[in-house]
Every structure is written in C-alpha cells, then in structure tokens.
C-alpha cells in the first residue's frame, strides 16, 4: 500500500491533536507514516502508535527547530524522494502552510491549503475547502506530482487504532541556505486551562461591546467548558492577546457552538466563524449584522445576560 506522509506538529515532543486527525485522514488514502522532526521522539511515538501510524520517521535534530520553515521543508523533500508517498499531509497553521509551500516548489508538485475535509477517490485525495469567508465550498484535486495538502483542525475525528509505529531514524542534510532565518527567542503561550480555540467544541467570543471587561465572557465560557475568543476590535484595544482573535487575520473556528457577545459581525469576523454549526449572538443593537446568521439571538446588554445565563447553565448542570 502507498505510504502517506504526515508531518507531526508537536510542542517539545507532545503531539498536537490536529496531527492525530491527519493520521485518520491518511488511513483513507493509504498507510500513514508519521514524520517527527525534533529531539526525543519517544513520547510522540507512543501517541502516534495509538492513532494508527505504521511507521515513524525520526529526524533527530533539535537544531532544526531554531530556524524558520526552510530546514523542515528540506527534510521532507528528502523523505519524499526516498519514500515516493501518495500524498503529504501537514497541519494548516502558519508554519505548516509555509513548509508545504516550499516543498511544492522543491518537488514541482501541486499544493492545496486549508482543506476542511479530505476523501479518497481510488487513493487520490479529493479535498474540500471553504472559501470567500465561508460562502463557497470548493472540491479539488492535485494533478501534478505528489499531492501536498494542508488540513485545518477538526477536519476529522481522530480514530484510535493500533499502528505498528516502527521507528526509522533518518539522516537529512540541511543546507546553510536554509538556516538563514533564526528563531532567537521563543516564548511559549501560557496555558489558559481552557480548550484550544481551534479545537474546541464550543467557543464564546467577546468584542468591543465588552468594554474591556471579559469576565462575563470567560465565566460563561467556563460554565460550558468552552474556549474563549475575541474580535479584532477587542484585540486591538489590548483586552485580549492576538492568539485569541477569530476572523480573517486570526483563527478560523468551526465549532459545534459559537457564541458572540458584543460583536457586530463584520465580514472579516464572519470569515473566521460562519461555518460553525450553531451560532448565538448577544448584542444590544438589534440591527447588528451578526443577527442575520444566528440560530438564536438575544437583544440585550451582555453584562446582564451573560452572568445570568452562566448562573442558569451552572444550575442546570447541577
């Protein structure tokens, strides 16, 4: 069976959930082989095994992580040339897309980014993308070379199946030219204790209407076990870090439930949330454009509605 390469996205060896989703997708297309780049793969191999990786290629090189993008693209190129895979799957985040971009140029291969679903047509990946602020769905195929596909979080539910996860160490050569953008400092994001924004089943976001007080938003989110998001107006005002921004220039989320409080619903915000399954808005202006998209809306002051709703939710959960 053809191998499908999955680049492992990890933080110091801890595999991130979207990678497990990629393994599940890879199994539709062929035999999943994970590619781990970094130091100490042991913890990763354990989780990759649980989600069906048959092989794990390990590029044991801590130095690579201190440069942006280019060395990883070189490593993947060498692996593709060695294994002739049926496709390469990479997580759709800034670095993942850029690795895919350079790999496509190196291999003369077609690239598809931001797939929200990947199915197999006789082993050929067929992707679904959501474009123009979520207003269109596009299905596409790569027609030249090795399909290089970046996949958004939540494109599949990771299935636990036991893989062989046979470890194979690979030596790659990284050119000096690839080591020209150096990461001289890295500050890991502090864990909020809440679910990851792009992975959460429920997201509660606040906008300018919070007036800078995110407490009602955070408490409502916590009552539902949700992630917290923000509009750009809230981020630009310095109320929330940029990592929480939902929208065109922030994160795209597609949860089961999205609650927007004090957010008007500009096209750039909608671009990041309009494929959510269920949408709720709380806004004191009944003319707010976001109300056009909602399954349920409350016209009212979020500072009154959210705390009361938090209480109501907590009571019901008993």
């Amino acid at each position, binding site marked *: 069976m053809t191998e499908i390469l999955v680049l492992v996205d990890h933080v110091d060896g801890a595999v*991130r959930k979207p990678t497990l989703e990629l393994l599940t997708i890879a199994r539709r297309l062929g035999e999943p082989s994970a590619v781990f780049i970094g130091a100490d793969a042991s913890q990763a191999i354990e989780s990759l095994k649980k989600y069906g990786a048959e092989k794990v290629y390990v590029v044991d090189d801590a130095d690579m992580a201190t440069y*942006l*993008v*280019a060395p990883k*693209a070189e490593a993947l190129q060498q692996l593709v040339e060695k294994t002739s895979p049926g496709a390469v799957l990479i997580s759709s*985040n*800034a*670095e993942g*897309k*850029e690795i*895919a*971009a350079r790999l*496509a*140029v*190196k291999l003369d291969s*077609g*690239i*598809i980014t*931001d797939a929200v679903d990947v199915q197999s047509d006789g082993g050929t990946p067929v992707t679904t993308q959501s474009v*123009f602020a979520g207003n*269109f*769905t*596009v*299905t*596409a*195929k*790569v*027609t030249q070379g090795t399909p290089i596909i970046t996949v958004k979080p939540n494109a599949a539910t990771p299935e636990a199946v036991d893989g062989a996860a046979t470890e194979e160490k690979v030596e790659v050569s990284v050119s000096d030219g690839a080591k*020209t*953008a*150096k990461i*001289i400092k*890295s*500050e*890991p994001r502090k864990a909020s204790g809440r679910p990851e924004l792009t992975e959460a089943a*429920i997201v509660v976001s606040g906008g300018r209407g919070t007036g800078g007080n995110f407490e009602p938003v955070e408490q409502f989110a916590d009552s539902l076990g949700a992630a917290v998001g923000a509009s*750009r107006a809230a981020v630009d005002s310095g109320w929330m870090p*940029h*990592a929480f921004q939902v929208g065109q*220039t922030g994160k795209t989320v597609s949860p089961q*439930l999205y609650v927007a409080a004090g957010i008007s619903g500009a*096209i750039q915000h909608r671009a990041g949330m309009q494929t959510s399954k*269920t949408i*709720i808005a*709380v806004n004191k202006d*009944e003319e707010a454009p976001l109300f*056009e*998209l*909602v*399954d*349920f*809306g*409350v*016209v*009212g*002051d979020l500072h*009154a*509605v959210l705390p*009361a*709703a938090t209480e109501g939710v907590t009571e019901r959960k008993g």
Partner: protein
Amino acid sequence: MNIVVCVKYVPDATAERQFESDHTVDRVGVDGLLSELDEYAVEQALQLREKRDGEEIEITALCVGPEQATDAIRKALQMGVDKGVHVVDDAIAGSDSLATSLVLAKAVEKIGDVDLVMCGMASTDASMSVVPAMLAERLGLPQVTFASAVESQGEVFRVRRDGDTATEIVEGRLPMVLSVTDQTGEARYPSFKGIMAAKKKPLESWSLSDLGVDAEKVGLSAAWSAVEDTEARPPRSQGEIVTDEDGSGAKALVDFLASKKFI
C-alpha cells in the same frame, strides 16, 4: 536600498464574490482593489524609509494581475511608493500560487539588485499565505514571515512572529523576503498631494516574454491542482431573536442551549 512590495489586486470582499464557469475567481465582474492586507506591507516599507533618514531607498510596487490591477498599483503609488511594475499577460489568468510565485520571482530578478521583498500575510481572496515562502524558495533568500512587529538595524531585521503555540523573535539578514501581518499597524490613507504625485510616477507594464517565462508554465492549464466543483453555501436562515427584559433573555438562552443538548 531597493525594496519591492508585492501587492495583489483582489475582488472586493464586501461585494458579491463569484466563480466563473471554469471555477476560477471572477476578477473582472466584481470591483477590485488593492488587497487590504498588502496595504500593511506598503505601510511598513514607507515607515522603514522614514526611519532610515539619509539612506537612499527606492520602493517598487509589483503586481501580477489583469488590466484593472493597475488600480492596486496606483493606490500604492498614492500612498508613497516610488514606482510600479505590472506584469500583465492573458496567459496568466487562472494561475495557481506556484505559477504566480514564479512570475513574481522572475520580475524581482528583472527589477534587479533587490534587497528586500515585502509581502502581505495573505491575499484576501485566496488567503493561502504561501506566496512569500514560495518566493523565498525560488529566490534562495531567507524568509522572515508573519511579522507582527518589525525592527531593523543595518542589514539585520528582527521581527515578532505570533505563532500558534509561541511568540517568537526571528532574525534575518538582507537580502530577504519579509511578510507582515495586520498587527504591524494601520496603513495610511493617500493624501491629496500623494494622489497628485502618483499621476507622474513611472508605472511599467511587462509581459511574460519580457520576463522570459514560458506561457505554458502559467495559467489555468498549467495549474497543478484542479478545482472539480464550487458550490455556494446555502444561506443561513435566521433563527429566533428575543429581546431581554429583566432576565428573560438569559432564561431563553439557557433553554435554547438545553434544547440543543449543549447542557
């Protein structure tokens, strides 16, 4: 120093964006403009020149796009860029990011002696965020991308990159490719003086043969991915809207959540 800012002409996001019957983006029937996210790159180029008083810096806006794309270059000239280069050729229509980056790379080489290639973080239509990395790969230059703050001293640039899991400081040396996000700060509006001055600024138009790019390498037929289908999402129908009075809103909200089994 020579700076090239890559600017894209895109359909207006607030208009009804459409696909053509061959599944390419309709770039003619919908009003277009300079991609908002590229304005931030233009702004950072202009600020760099202002900060480096005394250094000779020439800024060129480069665009690959249809006839009307001169509008995008014009806007960059009005903001303060010195000259424009428009690569326009019927064969380019329908190009994918690989072909676009090839044409951009050849144009940068033809402009010559370029120290800094600047890009936006993504085009507002395709939104792939891949062209800057492809350009760096093709030009063999360092890629310092997704900068949300830029600092430089001489040839060394340091930027902040807000990643998924960490905030990084990335350092690179000229010549390089730099892409910037909308966190770098609002772009200026063209002044009246800028608008007048732009009329006299040079704007060159190059074809593929000027760049020595084979027409077979670009366009829809050379695209290495094929769209099988495009489908408009069914419009969302508006659900129930209640007006809060003395806590009734919160109660209705909780009932709704329970009815949908969220609690």
